[in-house]
């Protein structure tokens, strides 16, 4: 176990270094000049030159990278070119929003995906099974942004039930907050629910055909007990791990959904920063979300190994 942990940990450092190089160089590949973008309608050459100097945009790339990494290591992620705010503060500001949206999406995914998976496994081959499978197919086949647009069309424009966009924090008004985030959370959760449903189904099928379930049944334990007590517990571990991984992708993966619903989370922050060439923001936020993603991966792997000792070797 320890050697496994040590090996995985030793992989994380080089991965993170590559992540940092990747986002830094990708950023620099982008055409356009951040100083020009920053200047907006006021394109005075002297002022633009001044900005380049101030943000070291005029220096060679390796040196810029060096400054950035040096800052990151001491907890300084640089400053947004566009609004002059430290990137660290921006991340702190956005984190609760993204976490709320991501956790709501995951909760929705679990609430839909797991029961659907159980039902379709237990009632294999029946109409229930088909319905659940169809739902799963719908979930993975609907483009997020289209679903988002359609939800806004139906629930905000036609019915007027839910606010079309915007964000209210839970602390400020939890009801308004839920109303504002339920549609985007559903859009995100819907796709994950489909994936969870499929995994729950196959895990359940596997467990249900295993020897000890047969033994349990033979002992005369009620089917309900067999499923809920014995089968589910064993089937759910990989599903929950998968859910944790999906949470990781949600942190920055809600790019278009956040854009459509004007949810001020990481996804919207990154995309807007890419288009505004706000380098420090893109680099900082992607680095943070990538790190979280890698860590969640590690935790998921560890959980796997703990559950399946066979994999330790």
């Amino acid at each position, binding site marked *: 176990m320890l050697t496994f942990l040590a090996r995985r940990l030793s992989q994380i450092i080089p991965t993170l270094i590559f992540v940092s190089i990747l986002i830094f160089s990708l950023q620099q590949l982008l055409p356009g000049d951040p100083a020009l973008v920053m200047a907006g309608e006021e394109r005075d050459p002297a002022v633009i030159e001044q900005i380049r100097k101030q943000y070291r945009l005029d220096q060679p790339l390796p040196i810029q990278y060096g400054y950035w990494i040096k800052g990151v290591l001491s907890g300084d992620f640089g400053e947004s070119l566009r609004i002059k705010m430290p990137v660290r503060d921006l991340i702190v500001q956005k984190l609760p929003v993204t976490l709320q949206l991501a956790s709501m999406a995951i909760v929705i995914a679990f609430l839909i995906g797991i029961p659907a998976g159980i039902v379709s496994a237990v009632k294999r081959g029946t109409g229930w099974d088909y319905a659940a499978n169809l739902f799963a197919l719908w979930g993975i*086949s609907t483009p997020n942004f289209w679903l988002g647009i359609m939800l806004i069309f139906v629930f905000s424009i036609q019915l007027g039930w839910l606010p079309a966009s915007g964000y209210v924090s839970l602390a400020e008004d939890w009801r308004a907050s839920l109303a504002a985030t339920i549609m985007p959370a559903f859009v995100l959760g819907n796709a994950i629910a489909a994936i969870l449903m499929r995994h729950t189904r196959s895990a359940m099928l596997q467990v249900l055909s295993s020897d000890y379930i047969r033994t349990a049944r033979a002992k005369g334990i009620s089917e309900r007990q067999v499923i809920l007590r014995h089968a589910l517990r064993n089937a759910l571990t990989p599903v929950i791990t998968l859910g944790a991984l999906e949470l990781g992708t949600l942190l920055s993966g809600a790019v278009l959904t956040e854009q459509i619903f004007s949810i001020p989370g990481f996804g919207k922050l990154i995309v807007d920063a*890419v288009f505004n060439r706000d380098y420090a923001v893109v680099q900082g936020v992607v680095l943070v979300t990538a790190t979280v993603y890698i860590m969640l991966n590690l935790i998921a792997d560890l959980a796997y190994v703990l559950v399946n000792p066979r994999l330790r070797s």
Partner: protein
Amino acid sequence: MAETTLSSPGIRTLAPLERPIQRAWRSLVKRRGAMVGLGLITAFILLAVLAPLVAPYDPIKTSWAFVRKAPSAAHWFGTDDLGRDVLARVIYGARASLLAGAISVVIALSIGVPIGMIAGYRGGVIDALISRITDAMLACPFLILAIALAAFLGPSLGNAMIAIGISATPIFVRLTRGEVLSVKVEEYVEAARSVGDTDLQIAVRHILPNIMPALLVQATLSVAAAIIAEAALSFLGLGQQPPAPSWGSMLNAAQRFLTNAPWMAIWPGLAIFLVVLSLNLLGDGLRDALDPQQEE
């Protein structure tokens, strides 16, 4: 994750390739979902190829007198903000979407598979290096990678395909590597090596055919993902250039007219949904059909 198929060594032998393919096909034909998917895809491909014959109007012909008209007998899907026939644009849009889906996956395959094979087959430092880079790419959000690459290459359908292809590469690297690791210890590889086959020969003749099923399944599913990604890039203005239609750019334009002309958003969205759905159906069917364990 731990999804490597645990086929017991020795069972798989150097059987002629036709047999498993025929077997898989027979198994596939029995799966209704997969057949529906295959049928729909074929229909869409036909639509795309025969677009000039099928489409009722020229997809880029503007008509100032027919701006944002609701569906009618003359325009089944209605007209868009510049008076163009939405049905014709959906039909021609299939070209962009299907092409983008297919080509970007071909790009991802042709970069990802060799790299993955090298990593899996050689191991050691090369493997470590490739694996870490792959991990790093997978840790960055897919769409952000694609957006950045598309912006770098400049907006055009071709460049969007390249951007999506490169962003999708790490999945194939990882998959190929894993498959190679599980295959390369098999007896027939050892046998080939002892006969003196070169690494390249072993890779192409023995390993590739054996990892084909897994790649095929992943490729089908990736085409679906790539079609969504192309739509997303076009939606953000980084894909197909106007006035040529693509489903994503149609959705992009439609967003402003959700209240006044909802049909502009409904049809292209539905088209994406159907194509992706059928690819997923087909992919699922393929997975089941090609999985030796599923054989009953």
